[in-house]
């Protein structure tokens, strides 16, 4: 179980998040949403141990992640930062193989497990046919899938993604989100993603956490959390929230600015 206790995160003098308590449900997709500057990326980085807390702690199964050995944590928690860049000429297979880092050592650099993990990751993400193409020659959606394959090869139960669909074409966005859904549903992985588009969050996530000014404004099932009131108070937007004709989940249709 992944949770924060009284977590305070800051950069130099600016405190972004103060005293935040949050529990991430296992085996589901959690979406972190909120306006720019609300701290969702910072929170994700804090969860991923990329940022040391100024106060409080992040606990994984009851252990403070900052006390866990780096390698051990990497076997349980993987992160895909925003807009990652692969070195020139690196093939998809080589990139995915990098995901095996926490499972390797100086003497055991390429065991059968490593090979199997890479092959499986390529298959799940549908990248097996493109395995030997260079990553920088792929389309946006393919590239993102390649990076996700890398985190899959890491074989972690929890995957954190920072804005995995921003800057992608519509079709590529759906590609990636459906992949994430498959991972959560078929493999039982826990996924935490920062998303910009609220409708992506409602459609694909089972748990939504809305942040404003570094605090959790609301969290829970999207049907309960995503309401006109949320859009008003967190995003400053007047919106209609209708049930999506296909899924019955909340569909946000903003129509104006909230004047307070």
């Amino acid at each position, binding site marked *: 179980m992944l949770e924060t206790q009284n977590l305070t995160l800051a950069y130099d003098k600016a405190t972004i998040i103060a005293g935040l308590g949050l529990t991430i449900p296992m085996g589901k997709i959690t979406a972190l949403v909120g306006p720019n500057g609300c701290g969702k990326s910072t929170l994700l980085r804090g969860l991923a141990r990329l940022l040391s807390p100024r106060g409080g702690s992040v606990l994984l199964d009851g252990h403070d992640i900052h006390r866990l050995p780096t390698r051990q944590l990497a076997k349980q928690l993987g992160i895909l930062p925003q807009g990652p860049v692969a*070195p020139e000429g690196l*093939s998809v297979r080589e990139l995915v193989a990098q995901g095996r880092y926490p499972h390797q050592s100086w*003497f055991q650099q390429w065991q059968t497990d490593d090979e199997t993990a890479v092959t499986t990751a390529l298959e799940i993400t549908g990248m097996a046919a493109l395995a030997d193409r260079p990553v920088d020659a792929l389309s946006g959606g393919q590239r993102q899938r390649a990076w996700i394959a890398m985190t899959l090869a*890491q074989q972690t139960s929890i995957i954190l993604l920072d804005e995995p669909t921003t800057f992608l074409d519509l079709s590529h966005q759906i590609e990636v989100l459906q992949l994430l859904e498959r991972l959560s549903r078929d493999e039982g992985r826990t996924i935490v993603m920062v998303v910009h588009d609220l409708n992506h969050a409602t459609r694909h996530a089972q748990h939504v956490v809305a942040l404003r000014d570094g605090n959790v404004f609301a969290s829970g099932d999207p049907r309960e959390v995503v309401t006109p009131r949320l859009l008003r108070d967190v995003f400053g937007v007047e919106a209609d929230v209708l049930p999506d004709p296909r899924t019955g989940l909340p569909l946000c249709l903003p129509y104006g600015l909230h004047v307070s």
Partner: protein
Amino acid sequence: MTQQPWFTVRARRVPVSFRVDKRVVPVLAIVLLATVILMTLNIGVGEYPIAPLDVLKTVFGLPTGNTDHSFIVNTLRLPRMLVAALVGLALGISGTIMQGITRNSLADPGIIGVSAGASFVAVTLIVVVKDVPSGVLPLAAFAGAALVALLIYMLAWRKGDSPIRLLLVGIGIASIAGALTTLMITFGDINDVQRALIWLTGSVYGRSWEELLPLLPWIAIFVPLALLLARDLNALNLGEDVANGLGSRVVMKRGVLLFAAVALAGSSVAAAGTIGFVGLIAPHLARRLVGPLHEGALPVAGMLGAFIVVASDLVGRTILAPIELPCGLITAVVGAPFFIALLIQSRNR
């Protein structure tokens, strides 16, 4: 299952396994062979030309019918060649590490001030202290390099270091060191200054066992260290966040790698002055030949570095014979257009 691009080696009884890109072994072998051939040729060239076969015989201790050969080869020319090759090896690997850590393909130990620091100390010594004992110069140069590296790391580090800051601070320090070196050049005795400038350009002229022996431990320690950390360099090359996520202890590994790069660059400067562009070009070529994974790129870049320096020295000795051009000049002249061509090509891919 599709064909893997690498050889996998798995020992049965001992728990050891690793993989090697299929391209690495042949490329390494070819470059090694080419380097050895050039070294042999280079030893044979000079005021007393010696046939390549005789060179090989002399090196292996076989009689060649000419007693002078042993002296010329073993005392004069062989150590010089070995210095050239090892310096090239060190620079190639140092450059690869720098480019991997900073994720910037224009990084080179010369640019970030390490060479400038070493040069400044050495030039100051040459100009200020007449008749510097030759054992002192390498140590002083290395101290200069290490000092600069320390300064860079201290100044660029600021609650989470940034490779860009590292590079830029290095450029700043290089400018300061350069200005101070110019100061020495302006006020020193003209003959000292010329000697200092020659040293500055980078040359293996007159390098003997005295320069070779102090270089060996640095190579013996830091080259294997770099190779062992190849996987970490791969991780770092994906970005600090990704590397962290993969479980690499980024700050520590980066520090060690940087230290290795500085040690190799500093000891090279100490042995042969600032030979530029090797650390810039060799990694590019290596990555072009065997791909960006450092298990292959590091040794290949090292080997290519050795090749480049040996080749430059050969050209420098023969092109305007009997005048000897310093190999550092040749690497600059040849290196630059070559490098530009590489960059242009990569843009069109």
